[in-house]
Structures are given as C-alpha cells and as structure tokens.
C-alpha cells in the first residue's frame, strides 16, 4: 500500500517524573529501517513531581513510519499523560535510490488549461 512521506516538526508530551528520562524518535527514512533520528536521544528532565508539557523539535526528520520511545532513568518513575506529533505529508516525495531504477514524477498527457490545480 502506498504510504506518504511525512515531514516531522515536533513532538509535545505531557508528563510527570521524579527523575530524568530520554526521548528517542525512530523513523524509517532514510534507509527504510526504523532507526533513531535524535542521535543519543533528548534528555527529559525531572518535572519535580508536577505534570508539565515539553516540546522537542524534530526538524528535517522524514519518515513513512515512526515511533517515539521514552526511557526513564534507572530510579525514575515516569508518567506520560499525552503525546502529540506535528507533521505534514509531503505531496510528491521522490527517492532516486528506490529499486529498481528510482522514483520519478510524471503527468499523464494533459491538454493545457484543461487540468492542473
């Protein structure tokens, strides 16, 4: 099934914790394998046992599939209340390395003035 490529902007979580945790964001692009895209991960600081929001930018991350991963520190109790990812689907995304000969964009034969947006 055809799946669109998404341009990720940021992820916002609402949480409560008594210690640090790490957020990692996995997507399948580039490479078609779900891989961590935030380097060593982003540290989520302790919320001092209050419920607080935190926004982490996801600039220049693309993907058809994704999942976030939150790993609490060794002695951290972490409570996640909500999570929102901001993204937009890219209309035409072309992968030149796609098997067997790369993706292309091409119109059907159209008469000028009769088609288009």
């Amino acid at each position, binding site marked *: 099934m055809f799946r669109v490529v998404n341009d990720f902007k940021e992820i916002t979580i609402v949480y409560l914790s008594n210690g640090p945790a790490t957020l990692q964001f996995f997507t399948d692009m580039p490479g078609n394998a779900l891989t961590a895209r935030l380097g060593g991960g982003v540290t989520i600081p302790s919320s001092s046992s209050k419920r607080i929001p935190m926004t982490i930018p996801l600039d220049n991350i693309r993907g058809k599939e994704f999942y976030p991963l939150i790993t609490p520190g060794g002695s951290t109790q972490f409570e996640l209340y909500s999570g929102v990812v901001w993204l*937009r689907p890219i209309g035409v995304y072309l992968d*030149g390395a796609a098997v067997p000969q790369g993706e292309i964009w091409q119109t059907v034969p*159209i008469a000028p*003035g009769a088609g288009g947006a």
Partner: protein
Amino acid sequence: MGWEKSHLFGLVEVDITATVDGVFTLSVDVPNRAITHSFSFSIPAGPRRPVRSRLPGTMQGHYTIAKYAPGAAGVAELYGVRVWSRQLPDGQWGWWPLPVLDTPAEYIELKLPVEPTSETYSELKLPVEETPVTYSELKLPVEETPVTYSELKLPVEETPVTYSELKLPVEPTGEAYSELKLPVEETPVTFSELRLPIETTPADYSGLRLPIETTPESYAEFQLPVKPTPPVSDWVAVPVDE
C-alpha cells in the same frame, strides 16, 4: 476543450528541494501528432526554491507530458510545477499549473495513543472474599461405608482352560556339520630353546661347615645303664617233700 487549440509554451517553473541533481522533461505532440518532441533541463541539488527554465520556441502542442527524475543517489520533494503558455493563435500568456499532489503548508496534529489518565479517582474493590454471616455446612471428605458387601476379585491369575505350548530351551541341532576346533596347542614350526634347570657351578670355592659336634673342655657325668638291685625280701619257707 483544451485539445481543440494548440498552445505555445514559453517557460516552465518547478518548486522543488533536492539532495541530488535531477532532470526535468517537458514533451509536446507537435510536430508528428505524437508526444515525442521534448525539452529537458537539469535541476541541481539544493534547498526548496523555484527553478525556472525558458523553453524553446518550438514547444507547442495540444497535449503535454511533464516528467521529473531525481538522480540515483538522492531524494527530491516536488511542491509545484507550472507552465507559462498561451493559446494559439491569439490567446493571452498565463501560468498554467500542472497537477502536483499538494503538500500542506501547515503541520497537522497527530495524537499519540496514550491512554488517558482520569481526572478523578475511581473506586476499586479489592478482591477480598466476603465472610458470610451464617455458618454453612461443610461435608467432610469421609468415604461412606456401603451397607452391603461388594464383590472384590482377588488378583489370582486365571488358569487357562486349554494347554498352551511351551517351547523348551533346547538349542536346535543344525542340519549340516559345523567345524569345531579342538583346543590343541599348535606345534610351532621351528624349535624353540628350552633351558634345563641346572644350577650354575660358581667359579670360586665357598666354605662348607661339616656337622661335627664340638668337644666340651670338661668331663661331664655320664650315668651307666646299671639296673638297680631290687630289695631282698624275707625268707620264705617252702615245703619240701621228704
């Protein structure tokens, strides 16, 4: 309808971002009434921007096909393509957008499937079994003694009615004779040396003491074997014939 009139193409503009060089191609059906006459130009890698190219004056036709192919080692995002054209013979020049799937300018919100946490506390009954107010009867697991006797078969093996064949453990006598080697020690073909049990005569003489009893230095008393004289008894009168 569009195909009734031919159009003249002047420019093409591509809104694109690419990590690798790509090639854009525009084909038209004039001449030859087949969409084979084409014009291509390279779009270098770069961030999102409009890339514009002038088209040759021969680019006109009823139909057109646009095509973009990125290089093999990169990706491209296409946001829009439009053509500067006018209808022949006397139409006005204008931008005519080609159908590129739209990329929204705004990001959309995607809620992650986090189970909601209730704002209020709810009652949760602990699974503690209720103690009944009244006592209930509990039958003890004592097996009931039957009123009548029941038959119990003793584990005696039944003697069969007919005789069954029992093969004695007699080894069957073979039909043919088989060779049986007697346990006779084989006589060797060659003679072997056998040493006789003769004691070796030593080369030197050895002392040998004869069994002569040592003569003592002094005389020892030696009792002669004289029979003692018995004591004389009283005279005995013996009657004599006269």
